[in-house]
C-alpha cells in the first residue's frame, strides 16, 4: 500500500527582498536546490510556492517532509536573486497551513 504523503509548510522571510516577484523568488529557490542536489534531488522535494507577499518579502512554500533538510540548506545557500543581495530565513515550519499561521501570530 502506498504511504500517505507527508508535507511541511515553511514560512520564509526574504531579507531585503521587498519588490521581488514571486516568479523570481521561486526560480531562485529551484536554482539553489538544483545547484546543491541536482535535478534528481530537486525532483524529490515537491517544492510548491503557496503564498508570497511582494511588499513584505514574505513567502510560504510547501515541501515533502523527507526533503525539509535539503530545502533548508538550499534556502540558506541563497545569497542573491537577480543580482540583488538577499538572505532567506525560515521563520517557522508546520504540518498544516492553519498551524503555520497560528505559529506566526504567536
Amino acid at each position: 500500500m502506498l504511504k500517505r504523503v507527508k508535507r511541511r509548510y515553511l514560512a520564509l522571510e526574504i531579507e531585503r527582498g521587498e519588490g521581488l516577484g514571486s516568479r523570481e523568488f521561486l526560480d531562485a529557490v529551484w536554482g539553489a536546490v538544483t545547484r546543491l542536489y541536482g535535478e534528481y534531488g530537486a525532483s524529490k522535494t515537491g517544492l510548491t510556492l503557496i503564498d508570497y507577499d511582494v511588499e513584505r518579502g514574505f513567502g510560504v512554500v510547501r515541501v515533502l517532509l523527507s526533503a525539509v533538510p535539503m530545502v533548508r540548506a538550499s534556502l540558506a545557500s541563497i545569497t542573491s536573486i537577480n543580482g540583488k543581495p538577499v538572505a532567506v530565513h525560515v521563520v517557522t515550519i508546520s504540518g498544516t497551513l492553519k498551524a503555520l499561521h497560528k505559529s506566526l501570530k504567536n
Partner: protein
Amino acid sequence: MKRNFADLHLCADVRDSECVLRMVKKASRLGYRVVAVPFPSNAGAEMVERVRGLCVDVGVDLVSRVDLKPRTPNELLHRLRDVRRRFEVVVVVCESKAVARQAAKDRRVDLLCFPGLDFRGRFFDLAEAELASKGLAGLEVDVKPLLTLEGPVRVRLLSSLRREVAVAGKFGVPVVVSSGVSDELLMRKPREMASLASLFDLPDARAFEAVSRVPLGIVKRNRAKLRAGFVAPGIRVVRRGRDC
C-alpha cells in the same frame, strides 16, 4: 530546555563600533546568545571591554578571539605565550603542515582552522586528528565559503570538508561550525548553519552541537581558566590566609 547558540567567528571590524553593534544586533535577532569577534593580537583589555560593553545592551555575550597565522612552529609557540592569557578563544590558521601539527598538540590552542580555497593546504588528516584528540583543539568550519563559492570549487570544498569531518568524528575531535562572515546578509540562523553542515555529512545532532554545546563548552572552559584563583580543572583557590 531552550538551547543557547554561539557563533565563534563573526568578522566584525572591532575598530568600528557601529559595525560591531549592527552585526551583534543581527546575531541576537537570529538567535545567538554568544558571539566571538576576532581582535588584533596586540589589542589591549580596554579595547575588549569597550566592545563587550556595546554588546551588553543587546543581550549578547561577547567573547574575545584571536586568530594566529604563524609561519613556523616556533613562531606559534612564541605567539601563544603572548596571547593565551589575554583572549578567551585562540584560533590557529594552519598554513603549513608543521604549524598544523604543533597547533594540534598544544593544549593552549582552542580551534584549528584551514584555508578555505587552498585544498593542498588542508592538513586535517588522520595524524592531525589523532594529535588534536589528545590535546584540546577542535576543528573550525566556516560556512562563508559555502555561501560565496559556486560550481566545481564548492564541490571540491564540500568534498574536503566531508573527509575532514569524518576524520574528526573517528578521533572524537570536536567540530565547531561558525559563520566567518563580515557581511550581515551572509549571517544565518543557527538552524540554517546546521542545515548547511549537513552538506558535508555532519549528522543533525552533531551539527546542532557544533553551533551550541561545543563552542559554549570552549568558552566556559577558557573563562574558568582565565579567572583568578584557577589552579587546574576542578580546582581553584577559594580563600588565602594563615589558617587555611
